[in-house]
């Protein structure tokens, strides 16, 4: 079975219901066990939370933008207005089975502290982020000589909320540094399709438009 088939369609959900969901959301949803309790940090308009709730998952959200929160609450989702950088400390240890940080890591002030908090609050963390090592990014900087802009990251350097870009390689390095175990890693191409599973890291780092990681706490070294 190819990874594509593993990811899409989502087991137990009719394919026609999945059309309007983003590829990375479907991938995340597939990583979360049914019946678990999930915190989505930076949940935006709540699309992922809605998808999770259709799968019998108890979802909660934090969102920075007031408009996003209000749209989520209007959808009946349990979402609170808050900031990943400052509010995660208020959550107790092991409060969730999974904590999700979808396309938000690069917008935090302290990505490392945030990542550590994710794995303190949740038994597992799912982190997705745009890969700054993607070939089109590299090409824009190399040939164009300007800060990269893409369809998914259209903001100019002076008004982007994304202040801590990293590559897949950088992220893997950070995980090693803070002793985080990578249970699963998937790179998605520009169209949200997973890249070949057996491809080497450099290939992912070059051709992955974004990375999605399922993380857990590594056993403490004795």
């Amino acid at each position, binding site marked *: 079975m190819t990874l594509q088939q593993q990811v899409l369609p989502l087991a137990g959900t009719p394919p026609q219901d999945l059309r309007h969901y983003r590829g990375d959301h479907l991938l995340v949803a597939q990583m979360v066990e049914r019946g678990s309790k999930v915190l989505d940090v930076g949940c935006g308009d709540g699309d992922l939370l809605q998808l999770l709730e259709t799968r019998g998952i108890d979802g*909660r959200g934090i969102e920075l933008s007031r408009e996003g*929160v209000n749209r*989520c*609450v209007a959808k*009946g989702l349990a979402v*609170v207005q*808050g900031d990943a950088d400052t509010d995660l400390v208020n959550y107790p240890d092991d*409060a969730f089975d999974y904590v999700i940080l979808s396309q938000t890591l690069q917008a935090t002030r302290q990505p490392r502290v945030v990542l550590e908090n994710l794995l303190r609050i949740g038994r597992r963390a799912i982190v997705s982020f745009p890969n700054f090592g993607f070939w089109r990014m590299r090409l824009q900087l190399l040939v164009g000589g300007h800060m990269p802009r893409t369809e998914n990251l259209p903001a100019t350097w002076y008004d982007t909320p994304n202040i801590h870009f990293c590559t897949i390689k950088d992220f893997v390095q950070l995980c090693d540094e803070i002793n985080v175990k990578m249970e699963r890693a998937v790179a998605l191409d520009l169209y949200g399709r997973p890249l070949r599973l057996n491809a080497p890291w450099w290939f992912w780092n070059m051709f992955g438009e974004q990375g999605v990681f399922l993380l857990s706490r590594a056993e403490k070294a004795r």
Partner: protein
Amino acid sequence: MVSVQSIPSPAIHAEERAHEADHPSSLVALFGADQPLKLDCGIDLAPFQIAYKTYGQLNTERSNAILIFHALTGDQHVASVHPVTGKPGWWETMVGPGRPLDTDKYFIICSNVIGGCMGSTGPASTNPATGKVWGLDFPVITIPDMVRAQTMLIDRLGIDTLFCVVGGSMGGMQALQWTAAYPKRVFSVLAVACSTRHSAQNIAFHELGRQAVMADPDWRHGRYFEEGSYPHRGLGVARMAAHITYLSDAALHRKFGRRMQDRDLPTFSFDADFQVESYLRYQGSSFVERFDANSYLYLTRAMDYFDIAADHDGVLAQAFRGIATRLCVVSFTSDWLFPTSESRAIVHALNASGARVSFAEIETDRGHDAFLLDVPEFFDISRAFLESAGKARGLTRTGG
């Protein structure tokens, strides 16, 4: 001599007000000597009564009841004409057919709090033991006392679990107290512009108001009923000060700026030259027409004493441990009486206890009073929260 205008003596509806205190023009639940209300101060209050209004129909499963709590100076007339002032209900924007608190769908109950002056037993009621108005002989009551009385009312109405409890300001305090004390009897909670404890600044403002009432010689140590006087100046000043805290700098500026009242030049006197002065005096005098001065002392005191965490070793999360209730907390950006930081503290505690909570801060420059005004974003959120809670509760479209 420089001309002086004080708060005009109101067209006091003294008789109507006194009559409403004992014989309200709404439904009344009487509790006899065998059913005392156990107060936090240690006194058993008996007999006592609760005045309340209901709207809509209770369904056959008895699962669609919503209890609304009024704020400091509100009453049970949430969506019906006030019997003393003849004005419309205080939350008609929220409650009614097709409104967020839809009377076509839900059975809505709103009771006057214990200590109030609109028919529930309070300092303006007649003490059955003496045949005189309670006045300062009335025991000091707390927010938990108010809530305990409401549970007795709900029992009387044959309702086991409320679909939702809803309130803003002091009403929000009651909603949170219900959640902490009777979580199994509450399916969902909408707590607006409130806090789990009254801040030092808020206690300070209340103290200012109480001292204004007590400094009025017509207060007569609370015996104004017997002595035929009324502390309308003191209570008016208390209301003027409080009213400022319900608004915001921006709202006052937008509404009045430095505009003059019916004149182009200052009169070099202490008349109400500015529109904002005239407005505040009007607020003060119209309030004393409908509200009892002693009741104001008791209810502000109840809010001051409120501190849910204090009853749980100072840890707020402990108060909400293991609750299955769904909550929605709402604050307003320009509310400096119950600022967003207070709501955030509630949400942190609820998150820590694992409760299912939503929290929205709504942008408005209208201050604390925003929860009573026409703020569409607030209505949308309230409606959506209730609809999703209704789905989870299995409520059908009609009340049948």
